[in-house]
């Protein structure tokens, strides 16, 4: 029997201790040892200082243009790491300078291959394993049908990733994903690095055990509450308040799990965290920046079909 639940049940399961994400220091160290830039670099240091950076806006624009509701996928199993990695990847893709010239958005990234790469048949995943797979072994696949693979990823279907967990992502799927690798992943070690990454249009995902209230205050902020072994993407940074840089955290539990005010056009299902909370999360050692995704070349239309029909 597969471990799928309603979005409401998923929220309760996480509140009750479901381990969706694991920050494994040894796995993180192993992955970091293979990376050319294991830690977020100094070259961008300070580039987000004092700024309001809203890289989620590019994702929202593309999502709406393709007829989707931004960030509407609600987990139905413990696959939060794949959602967080996907949402970080999509921030990087949507803000890549090439997206306006040689590359195309096409559609949001699919979560199933990422979750299928967790290496076991149970629920949950080690964060560094999934982000490492997207960087080294596999990569990105999109929410679309892959007729050549007999694979339909056009709608979120947790069962696909669940099934692949035990036996691994099929080789032909891994090969297809590897055409669109995440070129750079780096460990984030401070809130300043997270701020600078977001200011440059990089994606950020964070795995921790910090839980949150289900309400946002008038500034869109949710306060910490309880324990969630959970992964979520960070999609914006607001460093306009001296001493309190805030981050927009995008959850993957749909829209209705949290209520309250939203600011700066933040998407449904998201909330802001204060600088001290951001630091607590980062101190878990599972916050990553992703960038330089090998994107999807724009397709060219060779004609509009009239010659084929009319001659």
């Amino acid at each position, binding site marked *: 029997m597969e471990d799928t639940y309603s979005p409401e049940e998923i929220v309760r399961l996480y509140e009750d201790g479901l381990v969706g994400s694991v920050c494994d220091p040894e796995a993180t160290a192993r992955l970091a040892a293979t990376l050319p830039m294991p830690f977020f670099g100094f070259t961008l240091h300070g580039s987000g200082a004092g700024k309001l950076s809203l890289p989620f806006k590019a994702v929202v624009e593309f999502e709406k243009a393709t007829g989707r509701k931004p960030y509407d996928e609600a987990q139905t199993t413990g696959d939060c790491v794949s959602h967080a990695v996907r949402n970080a990847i999509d921030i990087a893709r949507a803000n890549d300078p090439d997206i306006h010239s040689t590359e195309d958005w096409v559609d949001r990234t699919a979560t199933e291959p990422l979750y299928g790469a967790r290496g076991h048949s149970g629920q949950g995943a080690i964060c560094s394993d999934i982000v490492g797979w997207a960087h080294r072994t596999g990569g990105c696949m999109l929410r679309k049908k892959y007729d050549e693979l007999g694979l339909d990823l056009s709608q979120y279907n947790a069962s696909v990733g669940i099934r692949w967990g035990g036996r691994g992502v099929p080789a032909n799927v891994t090969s297809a994903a590897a055409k669109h690798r995440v070129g750079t992943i780096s460990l984030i070690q401070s809130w300043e690095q997270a701020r600078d990454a977001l200011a440059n249009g990089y994606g950020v995902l964070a795995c921790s055990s910090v839980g949150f209230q289900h309400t946002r205050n008038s500034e869109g902020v949710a306060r910490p509450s309880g324990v969630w072994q959970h992964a979520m993407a960070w999609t914006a940074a607001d460093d306009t308040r001296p001493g309190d840089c805030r981050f927009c955290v995008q959850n993957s539990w749909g829209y209705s799990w949290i209520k309250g005010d939203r600011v700066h056009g933040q998407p449904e299902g998201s909330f802001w965290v204060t600088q001290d909370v951001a630091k607590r999360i980062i101190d878990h050692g599972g916050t990553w920046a992703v960038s330089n995704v090998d994107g999807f070349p724009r397709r060219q*239309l060779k004609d509009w079909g009239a*010659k084929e029909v*009319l001659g």
Partner: protein
Amino acid sequence: MGWVRASVIAACLLVCAGAAGVSWVQSVLRPVDTRPVVVPASVLAGVGSADAKQLRDFYAAMADIVVRDGQAKEPVCKTTLDLRNRHKAALQMAFAMTGMVGKYPGLGERLDAYLLDAIGGTDVPLTSAIRESASKAFAAIR
């Protein structure tokens, strides 16, 4: 045979409109200047007046549908490639078995060249601006 062709065109466009979930009778075209449209003075050159009218009516309907599809809750065409493929299918349904196919050498090629120039040759999301641009391009075929 004019009414037969008109019926076929109407049928295929109704299919498209129905799929798009849009009402057929109203026109909501609005004048916009999102992109200069090359007026295809020579696209229909040499086409008989009755056939030209059929094409004109066809593209007038396309101009209407492409905008209203974008107002639907779930648009049928989400990218320019979607629109290109629907355009081709609609052409097939409207003009197959009408005697129009192959009757005017180069007509299809001229239409393709015009549409590539006016709407574009890259698959991109059909934003409202691009829908308006495509609508103007279709409507200009006359």
